[in-house]
């Protein structure tokens, strides 16, 4: 790859870096990375969205930083360097949430810190940022964060609607008067196993719509 080669910022190749992880290379449903946090923070939509944004920011910026210094990172300590960059970003995000989004940071509690161990981050740094220029890496990070976020939002939508009867904290089912027909919230939806089943359902749906994903 020649360094002098100029490429438009939003070239088709770069756009693809963003859109591929949303569907055909989705980190959760296709690469099956970052499942643990996807189970933990999807009970309500609000923490899910904050978690999604946090992961997006952290992946994008650490991808950018690692790609910018990829030529200077000694191969033998590259994993440590990657972890240091991720950990720094995560701590900053955590501190910002504690200062400006206290309630959400209380709900997310340890899971913000656990972004550090989210496999999506290390995966993208190793697989992409170490071998690509900063801008494509940044896009790749945003895309993978968004791909993770989309699944989080879909799962949390169903879990909140069926488990707590609300959408984004707004009591939809109560307003619609569903409870007067003896309907009750499904307590199971709030527990982590249901998130796993929902993710499984999404993977199934995803593969049935996109035959290329099915292993031969």
């Amino acid at each position, binding site marked *: 790859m020649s360094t002098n080669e100029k490429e438009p910022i939003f070239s088709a190749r770069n756009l693809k870096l963003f859109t591929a992880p949303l569907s055909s290379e989705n980190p959760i449903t296709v690469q099956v990375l970052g499942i643990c946090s996807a189970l*933990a923070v999807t*009970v309500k939509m609000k923490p899910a969205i904050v978690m999604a944004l946090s992961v997006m920011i952290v992946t994008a910026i650490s991808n950018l930083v690692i790609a910018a210094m990829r*030529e*200077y*990172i*000694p*191969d*033998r*300590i590259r994993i*440590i*360097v990657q972890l*240091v960059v991720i950990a*720094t970003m995560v*701590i*900053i995000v955590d*501190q*910002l949430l*504690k*200062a*400006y989004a*206290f*309630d959400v940071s209380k709900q997310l*509690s*340890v899971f913000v810190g656990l972004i550090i161990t989210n496999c999506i981050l290390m995966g993208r740094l190793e697989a992409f940022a170490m071998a690509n220029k900063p801008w494509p890496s940044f896009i790749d990070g945003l895309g993978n964060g968004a791909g993770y976020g989309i699944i989080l939002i879909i799962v949390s939508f169903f879990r909140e609607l069926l488990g707590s009867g609300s959408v984004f904290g707004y009591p939809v089912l109560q307003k619609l008067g569903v409870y007067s027909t003896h309907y009750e919230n499904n307590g199971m939806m*709030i*527990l*982590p196993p249901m998130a796993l089943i929902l993710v499984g359902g999404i993977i199934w749906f995803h593969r049935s719509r996109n035959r290329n994903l099915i292993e031969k």
Partner: protein
Amino acid sequence: MKHFTNRYIFIFSAVMVIIVATILSMAATLLKPQQEKNLEVEKKKSMLESINIPADRNNAEGLYSKYIKESRVIDSKGEEKKGIDAFTVEMKVEQKKAPADQSLAIFFATTDDGEKVIILPLEGKGLWGPIYGFISLKSDMNTVFGVTFDHKGETPGLGAEINTTAFESQFKGQKIFEDGRFVSVKVLKSNEKPIENHSVDAISGGTITSKGLEKMLFDCLLKYEDYLKKNAK
């Protein structure tokens, strides 16, 4: 792959660590005032919840100054200690000191019905980390008026249930003294026989958190025993 000398690797790591440390300490220092403010509002909010006044982050400060007018710091004998702001006293820090040196905070509140209640802080251990809260007692210094609990990281759906209204509301009307003897409120599993006025149901699947909560109530309220006996009406 380019070859790097050991010397380069050491310098690289050292420089990286220094840069990262600078960034992190800057972030921590700059955001500290805002974070402390959040914790202060959170504390006021929990205190209001312990006297059954629902508050959110926006109105907590206003409601706090409306209902909780007075505070006092006492020692373990129930004598008043002067010159300490009760709001800054942290039960967690005090518990590490010798009993005679501990400062204990008491807050006085008057509800809309004119009921005079006192609010006492609680601090203990759950399964994974600290649990804490406030308990309010009626002016007989015996009947529980309300409680609020919170936790740092108990298991969601199990131990974490201690901060739900369903669990907390069980404490209302429980008594902590029986014929002048301190007994606190027990948190019992379904196979244990309930004690009238002195027990609530534990959380199924959250035994260690429930027992930690029982111990927290006992330990913290015991510190106030002398004061409560002296001031009972």
